[in-house]
């Protein structure tokens, strides 16, 4: 068996494993070899789970041979962002603070993957506590873009997206607070879905900004993304914000091609910060779709121009509180010096356990929640959030989906923006509106410019992930991307 099996679309692989055309053992072995070979150059993983993955693969193959029914993810190697807990595996959040923290339980999504016989092959790199857009802010070093290892992979789920783009995993989970799935999906030319707020349980996801974030799937194509989403969505009594509805099923929606789609293209997402190459690529795909008979209309969401400041105020405010628990007393980084009072111990642990970006966001968030500033920052940001939601509600009365660029710019060089946090924050300008509004949004590869990926973002009304998958599939079918130009993007 050659490495070529890694090139087969994952939605086909899962069938082939189930009907014994491919063994899970081979597929897992190939993946582990691939990781061993190229991950030193990519740094997608913080932890790789070798023996247990192979054992599980052998066991599944045996069950399949014996004719037993196996789960919907049977035999697939799945990478999980290192801020989502997997029992007995380190959950570092890319931070020195949790360098040695072993999760005592499974996140609900991990439980669901295990129940469907998916094989958790490792934990992926991220910006510390998911705060970043480039996966450079990790205590465990930056992840590199598989298309061009001098470039960033996007972030914060850069490890997950890079593992998919470089064939180091079949499927991956990321989390998206302000674009952390869609940004790396776009930069790495893979598919990444940020589900509707409340569609997927957050239990076991280490909170950065809990009112904004969702766990979501990343894969090399839309149908494979749908398979993972199929398995992880649904109500969870352990997460009060997960919506109490029947889980959505997406596996069969690709049988019928989509006929009618009312497409809106909002101006605000094509502002001056959007590079002309990105502009061109997005319009290119919109026009292709138009030629197939799908009409689009330009539209406007006026309040979206306030999304970025509102997002950062809410995210940092919540972060300052969510990250307060890391004091080294119960778990995590501890200076372990005697004769210090708890106050000094807490300060030392937090000063040394957190990186600069995390400390900066905690301080800013503490400021925006402080008496006297709360009204002008936090409350005002929440009002804007409500207005942005209403903007989207209005737009979705007219359109089924909205189509915009995922990232305003092409993948940039490592270190390029490290000393310019504002320009780094600006990268989130097109992704944060969906988090503020709680709506689902997907990034689909839509082209390359000088060998660097560009992604198109599609947004839909709450709990209409089906529309995203259908539209995404349509876009995907009409775009060809030459994977051979990438450094680590072909097997």
């Amino acid at each position, binding site marked *: 068996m050659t490495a070529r099996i890694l090139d087969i679309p994952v939605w086909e692989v899962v069938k082939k494993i189930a009907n014994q055309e491919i063994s899970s053992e081979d597929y897992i072995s190939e993946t582990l070899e691939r990781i061993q070979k190229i991950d030193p150059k990519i740094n997608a993983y913080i932890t790789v789970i070798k023996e247990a993955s192979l054992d599980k693969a052998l066991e599944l193959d045996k069950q399949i041979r014996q004719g037993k029914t196996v789960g919907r993810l049977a035999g697939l190697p799945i990478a999980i962002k290192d801020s989502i*807990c997997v029992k007995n595996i380190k959950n570092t959040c890319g931070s020195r603070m949790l360098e040695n923290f072993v999760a005592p339980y499974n996140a609900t999504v991990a439980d669901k993957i295990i129940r469907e016989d998916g094989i958790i092959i490792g934990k992926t790199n991220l910006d510390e506590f998911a705060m970043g857009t480039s996966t450079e802010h990790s205590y465990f070093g930056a992840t590199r873009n598989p298309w061009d290892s001098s470039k960033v992979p996007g972030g914060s789920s850069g490890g997950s997206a890079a593992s998919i783009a470089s064939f180091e995993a079949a499927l991956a989970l990321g989390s998206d607070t302000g674009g952390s799935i869609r940004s790396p999906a776009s930069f790495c030319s893979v598919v990444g879905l940020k589900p509707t707020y409340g569609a997927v349980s957050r239990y076991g996801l280490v909170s950065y900004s809990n009112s904004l974030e969702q766990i979501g799937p990343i894969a090399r194509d839309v149908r494979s993304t749908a398979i993972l989403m199929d398995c992880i969505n649904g109500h969870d009594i*352990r997460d009060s914000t997960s919506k109490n509805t029947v889980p959505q099923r997406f596996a069969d929606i690709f049988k019928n091609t989509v006929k009618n789609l009312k497409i809106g293209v909002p101006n605000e997402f094509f502002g001056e910060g959007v590079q002309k190459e990105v502009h061109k690529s997005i319009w290119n795909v919109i026009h292709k779709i138009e030629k197939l008979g799908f009409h689009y209309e330009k539209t406007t969401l006026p309040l979206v121009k306030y999304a970025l400041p509102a997002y950062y105020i809410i995210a940092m405010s919540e972060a300052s509180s969510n990250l307060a628990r890391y004091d080294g007393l119960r778990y995590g980084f501890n200076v372990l010096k005697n004769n210090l009072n708890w106050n000094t111990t*807490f300060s030392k642990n937090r000063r040394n356990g957190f990186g600069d970006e995390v400390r900066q966001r905690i301080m800013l968030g503490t400021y925006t929640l402080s008496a006297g500033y709360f009204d002008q920052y936090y409350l005002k940001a929440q009002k804007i959030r409500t207005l942005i939601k209403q903007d989207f509600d209005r737009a979705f009365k007219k359109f089924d989906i909205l189509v915009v660029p995922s990232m305003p710019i092409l993948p940039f060089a490592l270190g390029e923006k490290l000393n310019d946090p504002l320009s780094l924050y600006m990268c989130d300008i097109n992704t944060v509106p969906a988090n503020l509004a709680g709506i689902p949004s997907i990034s689909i590869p839509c082209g390359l410019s000088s060998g660097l990926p560009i992604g198109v973002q599609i947004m839909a009304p709450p709990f209409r992930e089906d529309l995203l998958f259908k539209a995404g599939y349509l876009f995907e079918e009409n775009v060809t991307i030459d994977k051979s130009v990438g450094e680590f993007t072909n097997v």
Partner: protein
Amino acid sequence: MSSESKKIKIGLEVHCQLTSLKTKLFCNSPSDYREKPPNTNICPVCIGTPGSLPVLNRNALNYATMVASSLNFEIMSHMIFFRKNYFYPDMSKNFQITQYDRAGGVPFAINGYILLNDGRKIRLGRMQLEEDPAKISYDGTIESSSETYVDYNRAGIALIEIVTEPDLESPSDAREFLNKLSSILEHLNVLDLGLEGSVRCDANISHRGGKRVEIKNISSFKEVERALNFEMTRQKSLASKGISVSQETRHWDDVRRITISLRLKEEEQDYRYFPETDLVPVTLSETFIEKINHDMPELPKEREIRFQQEYNHSSEIARVLVKDKYLADYSEKAAKESIAPREVGILLAVNLPPFLNEIGKDLKSLDVAPEHFAELADMISKGEVSRRSAKTIFLEMLKTGQKPRNIFDKKGLDVISDSKSIEDIVTKIFKDNPEAVKDAAKDTKAINFLLGKIMQETQGRVDPSIATKLVKQKLSVQ
């Protein structure tokens, strides 16, 4: 109310654990944390493990609604939780999930009240639901200890906080208020006041419009009156020396029974309250509140009225009996067993308290069954024992736990009812006290002396009316 005490203003902040809940407020760890080895009654949620999320205990909502309703609160239909952010080892997340009345928050309920016996209304500004912090302990005192020990067994226990307006005018008002509150909470069966640390109280007190002093860490309702008395005396004594009281927080040291200055209150700590969005807002519908009210157990006020009707207790006796749920339940058991429930009430509400005070125990710790009280009440009502003998039996019963009838038989305390025996005794007394007989013949008031002697001689076993009649007869023939 004396004019002196009117110059005192007292407000209380009461924290009560809902100890009857099976689990903590936001996770499945048991509520029953007491006596367990430190840090064994915990789970990822209550120790704030990364990735864990709180889920509201629905029963806590029912209990809180019962409490709010019975304290005449207006329950807010929209319930949301807030985070109170502060760094301290007793909070596993370094924030407490609580409720808030500003910044877009609403408490669980507002504008409640409790009526004191004299009809004064003690306003309850707000009530909220929140999680209990962990318990911190030291080797010896805070100052001398080299270590700080944190036990998270208690972290996350459901607490209700009730805040009064400064309507209490004396430490004894505070006691009366807390007695009423306790009895209501006990009747609701939402907590066991007997459990150590199940109720805690902070008090603020100001004297003659002076600065407000807050007393923290009063660990039981009983201590509140003591702490307030100490603080009242301290403030008065400062005032008499012309020293003004500073606005500060003081700590109640229940060993030395004094308050100690903790910190001068110059600035208020900024807790950066903001919504806890891991918990979704809950709507408490009118139907829900109506259902809770419909299923509400009998409250002290209703029970007091029923006691008067059902057991013929006086209003005063009924009020004393319902002050404490254990006493009320006990008296009801005894009353049901007795043909003279009114007598039962007198024994329990009038005769028992001085005895308990004297020995420093409570009814629970006595080994006396309610049936014993019923039996004694019956003996009194049937005239089998005189009041005086009844008292002897009563004390003996409380001390030894023996049945009244056994004591009665053993001590030969039956009433001397045949006139021949009584006549013999009267004759003896007349013979022993010739001077008194002379006095009595002149002045009827002096008869009492002779009667006293007779009672003494018979240990009160003579019916006083028969004795009086015989004494008068004998005097008239002399």
